[in-house]
């Protein structure tokens, strides 16, 4: 008898569907909320709020085997339970997203520094909440597959997603290339910086540099890893560094990566639509230097370090001073030393 019971149990486990692991208590809730897909309640806004939970979907979600209904729906402690007086679907979402923080506290606090929260705090209730990006009962890992991240953002930011998906990064991401950035690689996920005030663009040398100074990764595409160094050594990079580090109010912004290469529409420098291809360079310079003429782009060494072949004049001047300065300073110091020695000897 015992043996038979064991066999039955094992058989049941083997044949268990995905939701077999749901905590037993769920049955009580799902007894009502899991049976009728049309189950809904009318909200004062005129919207219908679906209150049906698909066991299969929840069971397969990341929380399926971990959370009980009441872990999130904390106020539903008994049956029958009251309905909260929500005016609209959005009210429900705004009220329930707060539940995430009891487990995901660090990500929740990050969102408080994010642009979505700031927009929400100003009264725009359309700004994204946890559930808008992650879902509710159907939560899956946000980055599986990785392209899902950008598609999630596209839900609200459609036009900019269209531009991105036509860029060199977007096309490669769609093709399954794990090297290229998706939205959150530059914008971050929870503490998204407001791109409007310049703080994000001031960080682009570091953001772009994370991949573009990675020898191993750049080798795959035949790209130089000196792009950040050469930028920082140039007038723009120097100015941007000092502007970024300043504690004073910034009155101007020196060009950063995205000012020349574009933001969401970045293309290879060899692409005819690229902002940085030779033919389009003057136009790109004119964004900040309206008087720029056809010679002006040569003032920028295109991320090359001066060599006898490339920018030979700049290279020669560099070499000249590399020799002259030690020679001059060494000579003067030597003469001072000799003079002091003479003074000492004379005494």
């Amino acid at each position, binding site marked *: 008898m015992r043996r038979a019971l064991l066999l039955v149990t094992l058989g049941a486990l083997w044949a268990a569907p995905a939701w077999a692991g749901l905590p037993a208590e769920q049955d009580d809730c799902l007894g009502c909320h899991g049976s009728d897909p049309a189950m809904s309640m009318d909200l004062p806004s005129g919207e219908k709020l679906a209150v049906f939970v698909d066991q299969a979907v929840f069971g397969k979600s990341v929380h399926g085997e971990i959370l009980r209904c009441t872990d999130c729906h904390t106020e539903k402690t008994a049956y029958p339970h009251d309905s909260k007086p929500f005016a609209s679907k959005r009210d429900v979402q705004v009220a329930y997203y707060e539940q995430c923080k009891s487990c995901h506290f660090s990500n929740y606090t990050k969102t408080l520094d994010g642009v979505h929260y700031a927009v929400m705090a100003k009264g725009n209730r359309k700004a994204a909440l946890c559930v808008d990006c992650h879902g509710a009962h159907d939560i899956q890992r946000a980055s599986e597959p990785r392209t899902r991240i950008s598609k999630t953002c596209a839900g609200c930011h459609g036009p900019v997603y269209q531009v991105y998906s036509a860029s060199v990064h977007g096309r490669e991401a769609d093709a399954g290339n794990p090297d290229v950035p998706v939205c959150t690689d530059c914008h971050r996920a929870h503490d998204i910086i407001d791109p409007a005030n310049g703080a994000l663009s001031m960080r682009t040398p570091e953001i772009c540099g994370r991949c573009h100074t990675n020898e191993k990764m750049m080798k795959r595409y035949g790209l130089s890893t000196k792009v950040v160094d050469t930028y920082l050594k140039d007038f723009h990079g120097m100015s941007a560094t000092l502007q970024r580090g300043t504690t004073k109010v910034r009155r101007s912004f020196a060009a950063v990566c995205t000012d020349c290469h574009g933001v969401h529409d970045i293309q290879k420098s060899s692409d005819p639509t690229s902002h940085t291809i030779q033919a389009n360079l003057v136009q790109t310079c004119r964004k900040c230097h309206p008087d720029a003429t056809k*010679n*002006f782009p*040569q003032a920028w060494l295109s991320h090359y370090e001066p060599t006898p072949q490339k920018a030979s004049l700049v290279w020669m001047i560099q070499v000249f001073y590399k020799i002259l300065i030690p020679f001059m300073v060494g000579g003067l110091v030597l003469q001072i030393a000799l003079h002091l020695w003479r003074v000492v000897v004379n005494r």
Partner: protein
Amino acid sequence: MSTYIVRFTLKQRIEHVLTMVVFTLLCLTGLPQKFYGSGWAQRLVDLFGGIDSARWIHRFCGWALLISTLFHFYSAIFTIAQKKTRLSMIPTRKDFEDAVATLRYYLGLRDHGPKYDRYDYKQKFEYWGLVVGNIVMVLTGLILIYPTAVARFLPGQLVPAAKVAHSNEGLMAFLVITIWHVYNAHLNPDVFPFDTGIFTGKISRERMLHEHPLELARIEGRADEAGETVGTHVRDVG
């Protein structure tokens, strides 16, 4: 005979003070732009109210340097044309001989240093170093203020070339002044702690006798000691 001799005119003293203030401000606002990655550079820039203000001060001082340099040349050419001055700052063969003799003296190969005229070879070196440096700094500085205007007529590569020259020439000027000038005007045991001559315009007869005996002899009319180079003394206003 008075113990002091007037060595510098009021105009020369004013030029020195002006150059000193402008040079100091140019270094304080320029060097942090060269060493922009260092913490001290950022703090210094913040002291001037951020990079935009620091750059404004730097350019203002640059213009002041340009104007004072032009004025200096203009008045020098004018006084030379009127033959109101001796060409006391022009390097001569004697300066090279003096330099060699001085080094031989320092090394113990001679018993005494050479006798100098109004400006010794070190002072001429510093003066012409400043003149050449000013020209390089002003020209490259102008290219950096007006890159688009320059590229309208000339190759764009002049702009990064000017930046390299400006930044290195500036560093060299800073090093020469802090090492050489500060030694000669302050730390040199002969003048320590402070050679006040360029501020008061006066120098003691003892120092003249020690440092510029040929000029002293000319001033005091002892042409025999001064040798052939002596002409009628006319007050130097260059």
